[in-house]
């Protein structure tokens, strides 16, 4: 809804009068787009909404309501700087049934337009026709490339507009791929293009570039906490963490693969070059480059005594150094001949095709390296964990799935399935178990969803982007929110305003209790009704309310000062992730429905996402202690472990107990962790 309380229809109201029907094909969506101009817009928004409520389309054996589509598209629209146009809104509404699992990608890149989305749909339709044997590889590459764009945006290496261009480039490359070689070329060219756009210099090592992009500059920091001097460099630790994930999972370097691909591509042109009188021998100098880099390729090998599943063996065997060496042997033979042979480009193309499983594993590995730690049992204890990722459901032929932890029937052990659109949530589930039992975050089933959501929020923060003063700004806003409540106990006008701004922020009963407590000047009773997220939004509401002048204080001056030096979105990193309820997997604050609205839902995940802002409590505690961002980054997970030990939820929707445990988190006992290597 907009500020006047009107429904903000993505695109326009009239789009939603024709955005029904069950067809999922791109052609159908394009036909409908042409009809937008002829669609009449009902005067009353209620009429549109009511017409949506009346319909339900059955798509892939699932009933999809137009309201469901409308809400999903509206969530994407809410993340955009500019409202989406009619064509984009209509295309997305038509894509919803089939592609809803990957909608968070569209929310993450807010500059996408209808052409970009259409190109994406073309790529998706093309990928669905890929041969079964290659499906997992191609989907793995595609998802990894899209997520790589999103992560490079999050880490500040790509502006949003550039992300939209790259998104379109990747989609167009995959949409236009006709053969297996084309698909491999699409993956390599997209990877090269993304890195170039993110600022990688031509001769710069691709892996070092990505490590640096994800971790930032090394900046050792010394600070005093609790009377002791500490020195940490989170960036260096982060770099080592990512390298270690690659080492433990036996993943080939991206730079090695890119070099091999470039050299193989130039070999593929040897004959053509010879035909046009160019110096084929110079082109053939690429061979040693391939040979050198081929020796650096890593492949996971199956153990003779510990048998793996058929599916895993298939994934492992797809990466074959032996095959590459055989092709290299044949190439070498060709180069020993006096004249360039026609076989050379064919062999080079075969080599490129053979690199396909390697580049898929490496690209997937980079996404895992961003989120996982070598201390996670899944990474440190299962060297096939990255390779186990299954991007589609082979039996039900569903190609666009949410990221989820999965287990094979009749077996145990987790691996991830689906794309990367909800990656933080899946990581949060798996990464609770560490190599060391003492570091693991063990919970009962009642608290599991909340702890998982908390870990998802922590793992999705690009810590190199969090500015030093964001902690202070978040803490100041919380104090202002509390001050608003305290002053309302003694100022009837402010109380009236508090009553107004808490509509929709608090559940009815809680709002009543809050106002009753304030009426009785019971300040503690009033403060106990609210969470830190509530205080945060109260502070925002106060700054734009008519009583803001009455609330003028040193605190408001301090916030005004801080917002001049800290971009306001900086505090978003402490806001948790809400892929399910907000359609976006990036951490940020968003005005969500009160906790009470989620407690009676069938599944607990929406409530857990609503409670995923544990970092807001952590930031408040860090500010009181004078802990810098690097320290908070290191202590965030131990703090979640502390929370998991303290929280005693009576059932899995007992959000009051979860908030109470978050309020009591204490960083002081965790300080020794800062000095742990």
């Amino acid at each position, binding site marked *: 809804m907009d500020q006047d309380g009107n429904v903000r229809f993505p695109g326009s109201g009239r789009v939603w009068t024709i955005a029904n029907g069950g067809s999922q094909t791109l052609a159908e969506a394009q036909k409908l787009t042409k009809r937008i101009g002829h669609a009449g817009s009902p005067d009353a928004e209620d009429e549109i909404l009511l017409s949506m409520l009346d319909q339900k389309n059955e798509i892939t054996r699932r009933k999809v309501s137009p309201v469901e589509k409308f809400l999903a598209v509206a969530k994407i629209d809410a993340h955009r700087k500019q409202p989406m146009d009619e064509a984009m809104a209509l295309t997305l509404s038509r894509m919803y049934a089939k592609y809803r699992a990957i909608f968070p990608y569209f929310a993450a890149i807010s500059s996408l337009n209808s052409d970009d989305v259409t190109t994406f749909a073309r790529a998706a339709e093309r990928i669905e026709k890929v041969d079964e044997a290659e499906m997992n590889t191609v989907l793995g590459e595609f998802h990894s490339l899209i997520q790589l764009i999103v992560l490079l945006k999050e880490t500040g290496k790509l502006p949003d507009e550039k992300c939209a261009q790259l998104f379109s480039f990747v989609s167009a490359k995959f949409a236009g791929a006709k053969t297996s070689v084309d698909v491999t070329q699409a993956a390599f060219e997209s990877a090269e293009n993304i890195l170039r756009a993110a600022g990688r210099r031509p001769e710069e090592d691709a892996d070092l570039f990505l490590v640096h992009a994800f971790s930032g500059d090394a900046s050792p920091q010394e600070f005093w906490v609790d009377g002791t001097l500490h020195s940490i460099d989170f960036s260096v630790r982060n770099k080592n963490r990512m390298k*270690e994930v690659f*080492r433990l999972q036996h993943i080939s370097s991206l730079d090695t693969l890119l070099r091999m691909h470039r050299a193989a591509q130039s070999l593929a042109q040897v004959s053509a070059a010879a035909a046009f009188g160019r110096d084929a021998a110079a082109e053939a100098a690429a061979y040693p480059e391939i040979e050198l880099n081929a020796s650096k390729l890593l492949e996971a090998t199956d*153990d003779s*005594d*510990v*048998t*793996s599943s058929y599916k895993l063996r298939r994934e492992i065997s797809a990466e074959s150094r032996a095959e590459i060496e055989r092709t290299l042997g044949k190439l070498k033979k060709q180069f020993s001949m006096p004249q360039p042979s026609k076989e050379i480009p064919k062999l080079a193309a075969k080599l490129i095709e053979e690199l396909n499983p390697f580049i898929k594993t490496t690209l997937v590995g980079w996404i895992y390296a961003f989120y996982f730690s*070598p201390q996670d*049992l*899944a990474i440190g*204890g*299962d*060297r*096939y*964990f990255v390779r186990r990722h299954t991007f589609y459901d082979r039996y039900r032929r569903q190609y666009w799935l949410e990221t989820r932890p999965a287990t094979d029937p009749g*077996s*145990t*052990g*987790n691996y991830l399935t689906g794309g990367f659109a909800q990656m933080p949530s899946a990581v949060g589930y*798996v990464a609770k*178990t560490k*190599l*060391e*039992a003492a570091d*693991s975050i*063990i*919970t*009962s*089933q009642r608290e599991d969803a909340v702890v998982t959501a908390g870990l998802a929020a922590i793992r999705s923060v690009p810590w190199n982007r969090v500015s030093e003063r964001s902690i202070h700004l978040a803490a100041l806003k919380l104090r202002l929110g509390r001050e608003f409540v305290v002053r309302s106990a003694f100022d009837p006008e402010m109380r009236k305003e508090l009553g107004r701004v808490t509509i929709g922020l608090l559940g009815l009963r809680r709002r009543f209790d809050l106002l009753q407590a304030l009426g009785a000047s019971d300040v503690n009773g009033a403060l106990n009704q609210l969470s830190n997220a509530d205080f945060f939004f109260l502070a925002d509401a106060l700054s734009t309310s008519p009583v803001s002048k009455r609330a003028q204080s040193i605190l408001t001056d301090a916030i005004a000062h801080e917002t001049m030096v800290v971009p306001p979105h900086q505090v978003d990193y402490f806001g948790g992730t809400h892929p399910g309820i907000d359609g976006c997997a990036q951490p940020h604050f968003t005005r969500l429905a009160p906790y009470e609205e989620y407690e009676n839902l069938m599944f607990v995940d929406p409530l857990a996402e609503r409670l995923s802002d544990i970092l807001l409590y952590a930031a408040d505690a860090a500010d009181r202690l004078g802990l810098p961002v690097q320290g908070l980054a290191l202590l965030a997970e131990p703090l979640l472990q502390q929370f998991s030990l303290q929280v005693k939820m009576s059932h899995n929707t007992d959000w009051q107990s979860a908030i109470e445990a978050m309020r009591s988190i204490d960083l002081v006992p965790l300080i020794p962790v800062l000095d742990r290597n």
Partner: protein
Amino acid sequence: MRIRLFLFFMLCADISWSQTFKVDVRMIEVYATVSDSRGRAMTNLHSDDFHVLEDNRLQQIRVFEPQSSAMTIALLVDTTGSMAADLPRVKNAVARLLDAVKPEDNVGLFTFANGLNRLSNFSTDRNTTLKAIFKARAAGQTALFDSVAQLSRQISKDGGKKAILLFTDGDDNSSVLSLEASVKSVQRTGVPIYTVLYGSALKDQRLSQRLEKISVLTGGIPFKVKDAGGVASAFARVGEDMQNMYLLGYQSDSDNQDDWRSIKVTLPNHPKLKLRAKEGYWR
């Protein structure tokens, strides 16, 4: 026992300052079990028969003991919800087992459900362990594979002959690791797992096969125990089995900065013998 020797050489000149050199030399212990093609223990090998490589570099064996007496035993007891009925009997079995342990053996008590819990530290004080086991309560799911991987890693850092004795009645249903990944993790640490199937679990064929796999692949023995008396005899067998381990010690001077250093033990002159030893250690 792994010994960390800090050698301090104080060079004191006749001038007013001194300089300290610190050299970190580590004694790495590797326990190896050797058997013939029929699985019989080979107890007549000599130091020269073994080659120990750390990060592919041949190491000089400085300590060689064909047999050693004291053991470090981690008792790992399933306390998941499904154990509610059998747990009292398992507690009695553990009490019996503690009677059978030699006085010099170190025993630590661990339980697992959703995760691994340490109930008592390794010690020779049986009363502490006994008190701890009687406090165990059954609740939660079964993260068996994660727990054995975590426990083997944890105890592999300490010196001495080590083994895990696992009591369980239920199959894994909440581990992050698969059976294969868990076994591989344990194999890297070289800690044998002796599994004890007890009570109603004896009827579960799949569990029985899985536990057998864990035991056999990690160098332990699977036991199926019908009554508490069987526990003591099973444990006597564990002790006997562990007696046949060779202790190989060498000083590592590796400058490898990785957390994991790989070890490979071979018997170059006895290619037909089967050797079991840890595959590395965490720095």
